[in-house]
């Protein structure tokens, strides 16, 4: 599942769930929540992010709430992958359950805003700016990648339940 090349949006440490999915919009559906994703730190993000773009973060990405609308908003806006030094455990699980590729890369901060990157979450490789720089990331475990490849836990379960029925 080696993705296409995407443009990097770079953020720092402790990017929290309340910035990704602000509380006052949580009563709405994902369309409206996604419209306000990251608006307090990057007001132009939701309107200008393009399908296939990649988020780069620092330590403890997605800290805070259990609200899965945080990774869901990124996926809804077309973000192809998140690369960060570390994640909040809850955000990490939520992202994979929703089929969003999230990889751990100790050197994430060597990637720059606007870089073109390609993430291979199975091999654990990130190619930056063509192949000028290659960074290692922790591969996503195979049993989780199977779920991510299906598009997340719900389609994965759907397949499993249909398999049982057949």
């Amino acid at each position, binding site marked *: 599942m080696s993705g296409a090349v995407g443009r990097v949006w770079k953020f720092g440490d*402790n990017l*929290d769930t*309340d*910035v990704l999915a*602000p*509380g*006052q919009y*949580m*009563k*709405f559906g994902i369309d409206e929540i996604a419209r306000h994703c990251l608006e*307090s730190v990057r007001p132009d993000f939701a309107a200008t992010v393009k399908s296939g773009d990649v988020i780069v973060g620092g*330590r*403890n990405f997605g*800290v*805070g*709430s*259990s*609200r*899965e609308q945080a990774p869901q908003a990124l996926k809804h806006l077309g973000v192809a992958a998140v690369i960060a030094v*570390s994640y*909040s*455990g*809850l955000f*990490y*699980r*939520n992202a994979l*359950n*929703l089929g969003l590729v999230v990889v751990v890369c100790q050197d994430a901060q060597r990637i720059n805003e606007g870089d073109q990157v390609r993430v291979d979450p199975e091999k654990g490789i990130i190619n930056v700016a063509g192949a000028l720089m290659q960074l290692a990331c922790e591969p996503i*475990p195979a*049993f989780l990648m199977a779920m991510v490849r299906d598009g*997340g*836990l*719900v389609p994965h*379960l*759907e397949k499993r*339940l249909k398999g049982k029925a057949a």
Partner: protein
Amino acid sequence: MPCLPIPTSNAPTLVSDMAASQHPPQTLAQKLVAKAAGKQQVAPGEIVTCKVDLAMFHDSSGPRRLAPMLERLGATVWDRDRIVLITDHYVPAYDDDSRKILQITRDWAKANRIRNFYDGEGICHVVLPQKGHLKPGLFAVGGDSHSPTGGAFGAYMFGVGATEMLGVVVTGEIWLRVPETIRMHWDGRLGAGVTAKDMMLFLCGKFGMDGGRYQAVEYAGSAVTHLSMQERMTLTNMTAELGAQTGLIAPDAVTRAFLEAAGARDVDTASWHTDADAAVDEHHVFDASALAPQVAAPHSPANARDVSDYNEAIDTAYIGACTGAKLDDLRAAAMVLRGKRIATGTQLLVAPASKQDQAAAEAEGVMKVLVDAGARVLPNACGVCAGYSEERFGENLRVISSTARNFQGRMGAASSQVYLASPYTVAASALTGRITDPRSVL
């Protein structure tokens, strides 16, 4: 794994700090996970599938998210009696959207014949044990990040998102990486006016919001065993702010008394503790008697320092949330405010964590003390803490709050400045209009 550094001089003394070697004996976390995984023992790092004894969710993470996914799968709940549903995020409803969310919740509870449905009783993490649903040895998940609260009762409990909860609701199972254990051992006793909240803010300041590394934090030592059950819940609750998967406290007579009063039966406190020579990954020792009240500056719980470092003026004092408005928290605020009035130009908001806690506080005269001091009482719900309610902090408001998270913009305007502290410190600050050491007014 790396040892963590020795604390700075103004911190409680760290007596020892070591990484232990592997032994066959098990930690409390390992024992709880092994039971749920149907194994004799498990090792940290091992990935296991666990059977879930209890799944709790609320109006925001629950039916409005789960129902469409269940429908898509054509699936039903695996065991309706293992589900506990509680409304707290959109209570009370204030517009058509929030009314609709609550209606979906109520309709789903009825359609699925959920017996354990608590509507408007208070915040889920406080209501769950008060209704007798928790006990030592359980393996539980909650659709909320503060679900580690349940670990105060010797249960393994952690937060999950709605899709992961859907997986649990359909299969009754969840995968887990067996956690390492980080032990926070607190010797001595807390001084007057110092609380579990101060212990947790101190730990957030020392270890940061990722210090828990999504492992299990176990709280132990004489300062912990001397805490009331609700104070213990504050420790495990704010384990979320330490970034651990769960927080645990070995159950004892205090646990048993609380749970039996709440109607729980067959409470086993003997089996659920860390073996004396079990390997823990980090072991930190602190002296509780040296701990000063803590205050976390905007915009992170990790910005905690001694209260003496602050003198900022505040205009709002907020006592609320699962972490900061239980009966013991209300009692603490009342001890500060008895017979006094809050400072002119300051507002004090109190949102008792549950109906039961508010009723007890009324019976004891605690609510009257708070109201006489000038408090405005808000509903028994997540309220301003979650940032989902009608009430939000306005532009440039300077707030001191007994809640768990002060992320920028979480509780209101991005320009509002939220300081976190114990209910004692919040009440003392309401009294003077400045961030104040409660020990100076007690």
